[in-house]
């Protein structure tokens, strides 16, 4: 049964996504990414129209004056950049994921599909369910929810509730990557559209976010932001936002990816599953998806973070809970913890930057039962994780210790060198494609895909192949 469905994967996905990916293949490793984005998806103007119809986007950009003031208390004289926040929780289902869902659901409706299916334990489920409700399509969301003792991750239980509230059928599974097997079975059974997170639709939908950040800042301060911080998981948020910034002409703006550090926890482990207090925006997705984007449910991933990342930093769970608490207490904004991952990095990075520079944190998400720091930390304690005040970097141990800082001064970032991500990219390519020789066309593609030179690609491949 499992093998049968997996064998028919290509055929099922092709019908369910309606994109003929073979059109974009060039040779071997190489495919035409820009052609795929241009031909398969929609233009920025079309997407703005699609999103306007369903109340998505045009979210407020607010200056976090109190947090900036607090950061400056701990910054050298003349340092302490201004921090702005794009309040994406103002979208209909409460997160930037509405942008991704809006385009997929619009496209599904236009192409005559009767319903949409999304495999996601995150905010994307509620986003697809909400957009499907607006456009009159049926919706099924498949979630990884429980461990083998039927203990559910509170954040995911909440997202399941939200999907149901928007009228979607919610399929709740125990831990395991076979979630994709069951999703394929459902796509095959129903004939619904596959609202995968990684199609050109899902990524193009986020371009409006980067575009709005650039234009709102230009209008308000007469200049583009110096740095935009993006929570990084599967790569879509980084890719779409960076592309949108470029479409607005903000070519000098640096794009920094931020993930919660959950290194050491296995993403498919039944035991580790409920010892994470963050179910997205963490290194379990951030690192593997940056180093081999095509590990997804569609033949080619439209989310390709290495093309756009200028810097990649990690923050700890305790730091994000601190920041979430601070945002509520001094800025009066109660927002979900995972959505504050990049805000956490902003508190640390603003200290390195000049006072007249501008950091934009490009998302927030809704919060509530299951998602609040109180809900997540109560659960963590129940699962045997030690929650304490302390040095959030030194004492942090994913799955064992969450150390919550007591002062903004203790909030810091862990650098994850882009060069290290690139090296892993080449290792993955050699492992997956299993060959020693790469054509000039393939190497040109890899240089674009990793944002390096042709010579760098040659050198990196040589290094990997020597050890292979």
């Amino acid at each position: 049964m499992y093998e049968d469905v997996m064998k028919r994967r290509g055929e099922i996905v092709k019908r369910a996504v309606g994109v003929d990916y073979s059109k974009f293949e060039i040779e071997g490793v190489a495919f035409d990414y820009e052609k795929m984005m241009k031909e398969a998806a929609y233009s920025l103007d079309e997407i703005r129209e699609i999103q306007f119809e369903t109340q998505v986007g045009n979210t407020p950009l607010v200056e976090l004056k109190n947090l900036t003031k607090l950061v400056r208390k701990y910054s050298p004289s003349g340092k302490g950049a201004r921090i702005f926040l794009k309040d994406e929780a103002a979208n209909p289902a409460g997160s930037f994921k509405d942008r991704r869902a809006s385009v997929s659901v619009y496209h599904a409706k236009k192409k005559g599909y009767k319903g949409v299916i999304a495999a996601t334990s995150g905010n994307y489920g509620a986003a697809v369910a909400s957009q499907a409700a607006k456009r009159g399509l049926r919706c099924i969301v498949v979630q990884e929810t429980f461990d083998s003792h039927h203990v559910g991750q509170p954040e995911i239980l909440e997202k399941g509730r939200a999907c149901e509230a928007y009228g979607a059928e919610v399929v709740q599974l125990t831990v395991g990557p076979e979630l994709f097997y069951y999703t394929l079975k459902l796509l095959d059974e129903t004939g619904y559209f596959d609202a995968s997170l990684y199609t050109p639709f899902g990524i193009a939908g986020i371009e409006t976010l980067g575009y709005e950040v650039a234009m709102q800042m230009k209008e308000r301060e007469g200049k583009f932001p110096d740095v935009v911080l993006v929570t990084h998981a599967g790569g879509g948020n980084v890719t779409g936002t960076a592309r949108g910034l470029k479409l607005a002409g903000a070519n000098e703006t640096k794009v920094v990816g931020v993930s919660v550090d959950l290194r050491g926890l296995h993403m498919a482990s039944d035991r580790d599953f409920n010892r994470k207090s963050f179910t997205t925006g963490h290194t379990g997705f951030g690192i593997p998806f940056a180093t081999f984007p095509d590990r997804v449910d569609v033949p080619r991933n439209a989310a390709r973070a290495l093309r756009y990342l200028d810097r990649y930093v990690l923050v700890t769970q305790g730091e994000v809970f601190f920041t979430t608490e601070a945002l509520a207490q001094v800025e009066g904004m109660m927002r979900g913890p995972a959505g504050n991952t990049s805000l956490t990095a902003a508190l640390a990075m603003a200290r390195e930057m000049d006072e007249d520079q501008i950091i934009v944190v490009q998302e927030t998400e809704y919060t509530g039962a299951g998602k609040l720091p109180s809900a997540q930390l109560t659960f963590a304690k129940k699962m045997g994780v030690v929650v304490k005040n302390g040095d959030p970097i030194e004492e942090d141990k994913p799955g064992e210790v969450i150390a919550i800082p007591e002062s903004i001064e203790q909030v810091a970032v862990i650098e994850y060198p882009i060069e290290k991500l690139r090296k892993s990219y080449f290792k993955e390519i050699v492992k997956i494609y299993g060959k020693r020789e790469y054509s000039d066309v393939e190497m040109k593609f890899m240089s674009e895909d990793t944002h390096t030179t042709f010579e760098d690609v040659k050198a990196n491949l040589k290094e990997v192949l020597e050890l292979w």
Partner: protein
Amino acid sequence: MAKRGDWVKVHSIVLKAEERSSHLPEDTKKVPLEMWINGFLAEDAKLGENVEITTLSGRMVKGTLVEVNPRYTHDFGEPIPELLRIGPSLKRILEED
């Protein structure tokens, strides 16, 4: 006893442990892939019986009846002592000026 038309939860095994993907960590490999779905019950039934439901997307799904009017079990949690002093201390710093 659940009545026809009641909102219920059903459970089923999607893959037995031995049928699962070969690329799994040891702990996950030992347990089956399980599934829960909510829907409207097709016929009167008792807990533990095999039943059929109509889901919110309109699908007919079979499974073991495990709960009637299934409760959302997540909540807001308890106040967290390790977080409670953050607000007051930040406010004190802001008030210094």
